[in-house]
């Protein structure tokens, strides 16, 4: 099976497609070395806590398309966190110049015991018709769930039939939770659906458009690209079904987060001929230099890149020095998804902090672009040195708690919800920045550095919380070494 095969309804999960793992103990350098030499074997845990679902990862990419509707084919619970994306869409709309954000259209087929016995295909078909009638959506995405998958509903056939009947794209996305322990497989599943059914082969080529695969962060790229005479085509939040279909016409694709966009970036290059900028995103001075140079090279405008680099550095590097002086030597611990975790590790070390460890949710030994050039972990190790206590850990809170207890860092940097609480419970200043563009580029380092100083200096709240908070973890556990249950011995 090819890694990217748009004739297939499903994309393989990351474990099998990329050899991704969700457990590792050691240093970042060791992991990089292993990744370069064939498959790495993740160890099993004999204790585990709630992780996450591919559904919400697929859903966040398709729910935020302006004129699409989303159906979760399963019990009502499998769509229950998706209201969060309706909130996101509304709240971040001004960042993307969407003046009148419309209600997100999110449905559940609400299957019950009867469907688990007799199948839910008919109900799905009926729901698709009703949803189309109610929403007049330009495309309808159907997300699969554990229950629908186990009972064997043929979602692909149903969606294809309804597509012919209704005359709009009806896209099955196979993202049921049990298929993958790497929940970012859900991003790939969503993008696979978009690539196989929405993106059309290019009829024209637009030299002034660059695809940006990202979340819903602030629009930093319009300004950056303007100097090159190009503009961003954001994929997929705030895009439209029509704009997505033209993604094949862009001059290049960049990714704000390779964990997110690995699959689509590669699919656009391999299947639609849009070159992908493979160097990791611009986090840290050295990588920002490289990123602008690569952008200039691919656009044939290297002199503009050099000019931007020189101008921005003249403005921001003196400020950076001042910030470094205040952060120098502070100890940081990072917990985040893979690519953004790597980005944070670059950013914090550029700012003069020391990384004492990290709990990173998974590890992709290689991305779909199949080149070592895209390896952001290798890049941060090369640029800033090795990182001890580098734990690949799929949001296993018990390991994080144990680590924080042992390492007692000065600050905890997190990207995903639920983790900062544990910094705070130990009285450790904790920072979560949701906007992945916040710390990008030279100016991003200044923004992030200032925020970090503020967080570290104003620790009264976390110190007070630590005095009073409940801790369900046993003293025994806190005194064990953090990987006790990774070895499978206990």
């Amino acid at each position, binding site marked *: 099976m090819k890694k990217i095969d748009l004739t297939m309804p499903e994309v393989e999960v990351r474990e099998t497609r990329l050899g991704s793992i969700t457990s590792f103990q050691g240093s970042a350098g060791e992991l990089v070395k292993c990744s370069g030499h064939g498959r790495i074997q993740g160890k099993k845990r004999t204790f585990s806590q*709630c992780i996450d679902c591919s559904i919400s990862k697929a859903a966040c990419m398709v729910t935020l398309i302006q004129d699409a509707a989303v159906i979760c084919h399963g019990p*009502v*619970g499998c769509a229950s966190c998706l209201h969060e994306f309706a909130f996101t869409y509304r709240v971040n709309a001004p960042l993307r110049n969407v003046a009148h954000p419309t209600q997100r259209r999110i449905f*559940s087929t609400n299957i019950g015991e009867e469907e688990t016995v007799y199948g839910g295909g008919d109900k799905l078909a009926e729901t698709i018709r009703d949803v189309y009638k109610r929403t007049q959506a330009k495309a309808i995405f159907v997300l699969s769930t554990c229950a629908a998958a186990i009972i064997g509903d043929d979602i692909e056939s149903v969606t294809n039939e309804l597509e012919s009947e209704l005359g709009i794209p009806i896209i099955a996305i196979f993202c049921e939770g049990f298929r993958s322990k790497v929940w970012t497989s859900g991003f790939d599943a969503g993008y696979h659906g978009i690539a196989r059914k929405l993106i059309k082969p290019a009829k024209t080529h637009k030299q002034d458009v660059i695809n940006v695969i990202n979340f819903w962060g602030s629009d930093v790229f319009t300004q950056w690209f303007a100097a090159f005479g190009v503009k961003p085509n954001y994929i997929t939040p705030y895009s439209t079904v029509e704009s997505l279909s033209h993604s094949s016409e862009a001059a290049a694709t960049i990714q704000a987060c390779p964990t997110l966009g690995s699959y689509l970036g590669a699919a656009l290059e391999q299947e639609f001929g849009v070159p992908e900028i493979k160097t990791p995103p611009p986090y840290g001075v050295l990588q920002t230099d490289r990123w602008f140079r690569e952008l200039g090279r691919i656009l044939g405008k290297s002199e503009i890149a050099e000019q931007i680099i020189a101008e921005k550095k003249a403005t921001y590097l003196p400020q950076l020095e001042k910030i470094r002086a205040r952060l120098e030597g502070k100890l940081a611990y990072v917990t985040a998804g893979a690519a953004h975790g790597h980005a944070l590790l670059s950013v914090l070390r550029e700012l003069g902090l020391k990384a004492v460890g990290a709990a990173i949710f998974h590890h992709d030994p290689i991305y779909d672009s199949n080149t070592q050039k895209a390896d952001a972990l290798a890049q941060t190790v090369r640029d800033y040195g090795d990182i001890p206590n580098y734990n690949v850990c799929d949001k296993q809170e018990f390991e994080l708690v144990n680590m924080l207890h042992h390492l007692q860092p000065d600050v905890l940097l997190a990207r995903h919800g639920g983790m900062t609480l544990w910094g705070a419970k130990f009285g450790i200043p904790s920072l979560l920045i949701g906007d992945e563009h916040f710390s990008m580029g030279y100016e991003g380092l200044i923004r992030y550095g200032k925020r970090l100083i503020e967080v570290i200096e104003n620790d009264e709240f976390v110190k007070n919380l630590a005095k009073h908070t409940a801790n369900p973890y046993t003293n025994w556990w806190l005194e064990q070494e953090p990987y006790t249950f990774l070895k499978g011995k206990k």
Partner: protein
Amino acid sequence: MAGKMIEQERYTCAIGALQSVVAIPKALPILHSGPGCGMMVRGFFERSTGYAGGSTSPCTNFSESEVVFGGIDKLRKIITNSYKILNSDLQVILTGCTAGIVGDDIDSLANEFREIGRPIVTVETAGFKNNNFVAHGDVVNAIIDQYTNKFIDENPVRSEKRTVNLFASIPYQDQFWKGNLRTYKHLLEQLGFKVHILFGPESAGVTEWQQIPRANFNVLVSPWYGQSIVEHLKNIYGQPFFKFPHIPIGANETEKFLYTLLSFAEENDTPLDYKKAKLFIKHESAAYYEELDNLATFLLEFRYGLPNYVHIIHDAGYVVGLAKFLLHETGIVPKEQFIVDNTPEKFQQDIRTDLKGISTKKNVPLLFEPDAGKVQNIIRDITYDGRGLLIGSGWDKELSKEKHFDFLSASVPSPYRLVLCTGYAGFHGGLRVMEDIFNTVLASYR
């Protein structure tokens, strides 16, 4: 619970009842489910981690190998290690769709742990079987059968004549649960009862659960959810139950709730100082009306516009409770009302009758419809003169904007409103509803 499609869901599936475990002090939910169930539930309720919910809850995170070969061995390891890693007084294993379809025998596994004295309970909460309104009852009944019952010797049935077990707001599904439960407990204590409130910070935790049999009778404040609990307790312990079918909000309904409860207590030989209890109700009512007197001038004379009619999209207990309160105690007239809790058909007639009793002069149209997207379309097409108020969940904010309604967020999901321990039940709850509505109105003047 096979039903039609749902847009904008206002409740979740059965495993959402893990929040009822989270609400018991020092109880630990253990999920035998797919990897996403816990986060779906956490995402639905938000700010709902409690002692050991959210990312703390142990979970088997079903993968393909458990779907094919079953997940019992994995669950055994996880439970064993849970005891090493987490402190808890009670463990409740909840199953998801994966375990439900695969058919893992979790009860036999739980027995292995019970035999060595572990307080562990199992309950089937496959999402395709039920929703969380129903599963809340299943969780409570499972704890009673598999945990409470073990302590029956020290807790003789109906041995405390003044004690009641109270079942009302479902933790987290009712975002005002903490405040409401605190209110019920306070009011009943002032009448002379001892109250097992069972959930939240006012509960004494597992010892209170052990003492459930001691209660003389049970109190249910709910139109339908939770009724399976009091019926079960009637069957196993012979405890009768008193049911008040909607949330008592404001003076009229709170007085009615407390007076009818006192009558029920008297019929069941509860040794209370009834005279003193009634004086307490009178006192609370007088204090309430002092506020309403102050407010009345504002309600009658405010010249810049107040809402004069309301649509409510909520569960049955709130729709009826709020509608009665708003009509009689604020003068806001309930127009079409929408119950989105998937009320089982056998309870619907009683709820209709209850709402009919709102006034001899009015007939308030009522629709049972869990598909809230459909409900919104109905509201879109209704127009009345004057200023409208919409009480619903975060989903309804955009509709309110579209229809120029004042909007009060009062149900889950609740992305636009934080609720800590605010309650809407009781005398004070009514006053709080007024504050919330009229502060929203006043905030529209800039």
